[in-house]
Every structure is written in structure tokens, then in C-alpha cells.
């Protein structure tokens, strides 16, 4: 039998049901794996062994009693990106400013998983406040790629991706604002679901860019992606951007095949800017889908070339407003109050000292594009081009049921390669940002390996609230 930490959610759930093993045993194997490997990978920034084993015992009790409320996620361990508020468990956003912040409440998604009697292993590494594409901007240091320790795991949810890829846990939670789930999933060779804007509640998840932010997850099978999606989706009073759109049984989209499904290939996603090897591997997967009965059509998203610029104006603008709350008053680290001459000086010192470089850069970009004289030229212009990006997708979905393209123009890059060149880091998101701009769901799926032994992923993009199509096609990849 495989080690218990290597099992998928589905395998763990059926083993627990059949009493082949207990949740405590599964949890222990996951913790053992973390203990063995985390020093090297730095996927987890906090491991709550004691808390996890206690939750596992609770889950075993619930399973044994056969009580109502036993579900597929009962007793299954999960890794949680350190951006989700977890009651009584340190939540830092991997920022020096929150290095020992313990939230007094749970994010809605955490509450849902608690109710399902899931087992929380700990908190995973990320770029500070989810700002980055490599997890190099973390207060706790970089997460390494399980496939090659000299490469990044991607970001910002790099810890969650590496943890699942390295079999420390069957699934993990992340957030995706411009690619922060899909890109690390692709770099680490696993599945990563970015949902429709508003599909999953963001209450208790630290805000980055509020009109873009989404909550999603990583797993090693499409089946597991469907399971978790069903568990965390839906309307929440505490996040008014979650519309009352019904949550279907996502497993119902599996096993259907792709016969007759129209798959659009945006020609801009296969242009010169994308490494040839990546294009070839993705096209091989597309050929397989065609063989399975899908109809392949070429589409065009001409505004793709503007997406990075739109994102790096809109996102910092929203981020600079959201991070204004980090002033050291109600929570978070503070500059020694004695140093400050008055309240405003206290803000300057606290914020200057406890934000990392990338956060400072983005706050300044955001403040600049919202400042007098530049608002029309930058912010409003970007919001108009965002409309054009959305129109491009609407046109494309007239010809196709889903769109497929590479997640990233290249496989995982070297640690340190882009960290001092913000622009190079920003353009790494070129193929994930457009779907985010339009609020569309997109599933990253592993589809092959580079000659150098690094995973390559493709993404399946669908119209709003059609995550089911992503799953149906993703399963056939």
C-alpha cells in the first residue's frame, strides 16, 4: 500500500470509510513527510502538529459514530496558505508586519472546512501579501520547487503548490489574483483551480486587489479539485461579491469525455513570447483532446498584449488602498512608539519598517496612478482596457466552449533570476492575467515535462460560473 500521505482525497475518504486506516494515521504520515522534507522545500511556514492530531482524533470520533456531517473531506488533512485567517493559529501573510499576528476569527472557507471536520496541518509559504510570482518575497524565505531545488515553486501560493506536489498533503488552499494559483500549480506539476470572481467567499482572506481576488485550491487529481470546489463555493453574507448562483454537484461534470466540445486556442497564447518547448507540450495535449473527439478552433484575444499593464495599474491601485489599514494601530508590528514624534510619524515609521520591498513598490505604483493628474491617464485608461479584455473573451466564447493555452510562457525559473528585476517578474504573469481581468474560471492542469525535467501546465478557461467545463476538459488532458 502506498504511504498514506501519497493518497488523493478520494482515496483517503474511501479508506477512512472502509476503516482501512484512521485520520490520525493519515495525518501522522503527512506530518512525517513535512518533517522530512520541509527543511529543504520551505513549503510550510507553520506546522501545527498538535492541533492537527487533535482535529484528526475528532474526525475519527465523528467517523466512528457514523454521525451526520461526515463528508468526503472529514478527516482529510489540508495545507492552508498563510493568507487565510485561522482562529488561534498565527496568520502572517508572510509579512514582517504580521509576524506574530494570531487572528481572533476564521475565514469563511476555514469555517466551512472546520464544519466538515477537515484536519489543518499548518500554514503555507507565499509572497508577502500575495505580491509576487515566485514566493521569493516571503519573510520566511523562498519555497523551492520539488522537481529541482534550484528553481522557484512559483507564486504567490508557492508553498501550497509545493506541499501538494511533494505529497505533504492531498490538497491545499490558495488565492489567485493574477495567476497565484495557476502558475505555481503549473511549475509544480499539479492541478490548481482559479474560480470565477465571487464563486468562493473571501471573508477572512487578506485583501490584495479586491476586484480581482479569488480563493481556490490545489490537488493531484481533477476529482479532488471537484470535491473541494463543491465544499467551499457559494454565497456568503460576509462577502457581498458572492452572488446567489447555485453550486452544482461538480463531480457530475467528470467522466463525460470531450466528444463534441469546442476548444478554442487563442493564437496570442502560442506566440513567439512563449517558449517553443512549452507550446509544443501544450499542443501535444491539445492533439490528444482532438483525438478524443474535441473540436479545435482558433480564436483571437488581441488585447492579451495589454493585460500585464492593465493589471499592474489596477492591482496596485486597489492594493495601496487595501494595505492602508496596516498602520500598526489595531494589530500588527509597530515601530517603537517612543521613536515617533506624533501619530502620522508613527504611521511612516511603522509602514516603512514592516513592509518588504515589493509591497513598497506596489503601494507606490498604486498611489501614483491614483494621484491627482495621473488618475485618468493610468487608472481610468486601464479600467477601460479591462473592458476590452472582457469583450475579447465574450467574442471567443461565441466560437468555443472553453479556451486552452499555456499557463506560463516558460517552466519554473531559477531562484534569484528575476527577483531584482520587477518588470521581468511581472511579465511572467502575461498568460494568467487576462482570465483574472475578466473574472473567469481557469483550471491549471499538468500536461508534460520539459527536457530539463520541469513540469509544464496548460489552463482551461471557461465562461463565468462554468467551472464544470474546466473540470470536464481538464480531466481529459
Amino acid at each position, binding site marked *: 500500500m502506498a504511504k498514506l500521505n501519497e493518497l488523493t482525497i478520494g482515496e483517503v475518504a474511501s479508506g477512512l470509510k472502509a476503516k482501512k486506516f484512521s485520520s490520525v494515521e493519515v495525518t501522522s504520515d503527512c506530518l512525517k513527510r513535512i518533517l522530512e522534507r520541509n527543511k529543504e522545500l520551505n513549503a510550510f511556514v507553520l506546522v501545527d502538529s498538535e492541533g492537527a492530531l487533535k482535529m484528526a482524533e475528532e474526525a475519527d470520533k465523528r467517523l466512528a459514530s457514523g454521525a451526520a456531517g461526515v463528508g468526503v473531506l472529514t478527516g482529510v488533512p489540508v495545507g492552508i496558505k498563510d493568507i487565510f485567517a485561522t482562529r488561534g493559529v498565527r496568520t502572517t501573510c508572510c509579512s514582517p508586519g504580521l509576524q506574530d499576528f494570531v487572528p481572533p476569527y476564521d475565514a469563511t472557507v476555514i469555517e466551512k472546512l472546520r464544519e466538515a471536520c477537515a484536519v489543518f496541518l499548518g500554514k503555507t509559504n507565499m509572497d508577502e501579501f500575495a505580491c509576487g510570482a515566485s514566493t521569493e518575497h516571503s519573510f520566511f524565505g523562498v519555497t523551492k520547487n520539488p522537481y529541482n531545488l534550484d528553481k522557484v515553486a512559483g507564486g504567490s501560493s508557492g508553498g501550497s503548490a509545493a506541499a501538494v506536489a511533494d505529497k505533504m498533503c492531498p490538497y491545499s488552499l490558495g488565492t489567485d489574483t493574477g495567476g497565484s494559483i495557476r502558475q505555481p500549480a503549473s511549475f509544480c506539476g499539479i492541478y490548481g483551480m482559479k474560480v470565477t470572481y465571487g464563486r468562493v467567499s473571501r471573508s477572512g482572506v487578506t485583501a490584495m486587489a479586491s476586484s480581482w481576488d479569488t480563493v481556490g485550491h490545489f490537488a493531484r487529481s481533477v476529482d479532488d479539485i471537484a470535491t473541494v470546489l463543491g465544499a467551499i463555493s457559494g454565497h456568503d453574507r460576509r462577502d457581498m461579491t458572492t452572488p446567489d448562483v447555485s453550486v452544482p454537484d461538480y463531480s457530475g461534470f467528470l467522466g463525460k469525455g470531450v466528444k463534441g466540445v469546442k476548444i478554442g486556442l487563442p493564437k496570442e497564447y502560442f506566440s513567439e513570447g512563449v517558449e517553443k518547448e512549452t507550446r509544443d507540450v501544450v499542443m501535444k495535449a491539445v492533439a490528444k483532446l482532438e483525438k478524443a473527439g474535441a473540436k479545435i478552433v482558433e480564436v483571437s484575444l488581441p488585447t492579451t498584449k*495589454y493585460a500585464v499593464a492593465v493589471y*499592474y495599474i489596477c492591482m496596485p491601485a486597489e492594493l495601496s488602498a487595501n494595505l492602508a489599514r496596516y*498602520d500598526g494601530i489595531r494589530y500588527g*508590528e509597530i515601530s517603537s512608539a517612543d521613536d515617533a514624534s506624533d501619530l502620522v510619524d508613527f504611521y511612516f515609521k511603522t509602514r516603512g519598517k514592516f513592509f518588504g520591498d515589493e509591497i513598497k513598490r506596489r503601494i507606490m505604483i498604486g498611489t501614483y496612478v491614483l494621484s491627482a493628474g495621473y488618475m485618468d491617464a493610468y487608472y481610468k485608461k486601464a479600467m477601460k482596457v479591462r473592458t476590452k479584455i472582457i469583450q475579447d473573451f465574450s467574442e471567443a466564447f461565441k466560437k468555443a466552449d472553453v479556451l486552452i493555452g499555456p499557463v506560463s510562457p516558460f517552466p519554473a525559473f531559477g531562484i534569484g533570476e528575476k527577483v531584482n528585476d*520587477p518588470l521581468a517578474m511581472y511579465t511572467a504573469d502575461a498568460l494568467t492575467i487576462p482570465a483574472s481581468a475578466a473574472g473567469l474560471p481557469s483550471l491549471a492542469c499538468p500536461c508534460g515535462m520539459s527536457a530539463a525535467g520541469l513540469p509544464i501546465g496548460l489552463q482551461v478557461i471557461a465562461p463565468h460560473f462554468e467551472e464544470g467545463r474546466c473540470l470536464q476538459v481538464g480531466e481529459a488532458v
Partner: protein
Amino acid sequence: MKISQEEVRHVAKLARLELSDKEVEKFAGQLSSVFEYMDVLSEADTEGVMETSQVTGLENVSDKDEVVASVSREDLLACTKLPVESKQILVKAAIKK
């Protein structure tokens, strides 16, 4: 577009960020290259195009006006690193005497 060190200082002031001289110099260079890149948007024809800030079409969402259980005052006050007096957080003077 080039961002001068003076502009960096001005924006940092608006954003309440204390920067060292070294940071000002570094950020001026980095932000200049970022803003040069942004100029690509001037190519896009946005004549008559509306701005988008909400992507799923929601408008004016409201909720029932009722009290629901929330986090206690004690738990919230326990989060601050500043002194607490009479259930309030004590901060530096905002207005000088």
C-alpha cells in the same frame, strides 16, 4: 515615463512610507522601467469604452439590517501592540498641543 527621486519621495509621503535615501534611488529606477512599460496602453483605442470595476455584473448589494454574533471586543483589543486604556487603544497624539 521616467520617475524622478523627487516623485518617489512625494508618492511615499502620500502613502505614509518612510524610505531611506538608498531605497529612493533604487525605487526611482525600478518604477521608471515599470511605468515605461505601462505606456503600451496608449496604443489601445478606448474611445467610447466604459470602465470596468465589477466583472460579474453585481450592483448595489445590500443585506438585512440585523445584529449578528461577531468577534468580541476583548478579543479584538487583544490584537494590538499598543497600550489599551478604558477599552480603547492609546496612540500617539494626532494633534500637537
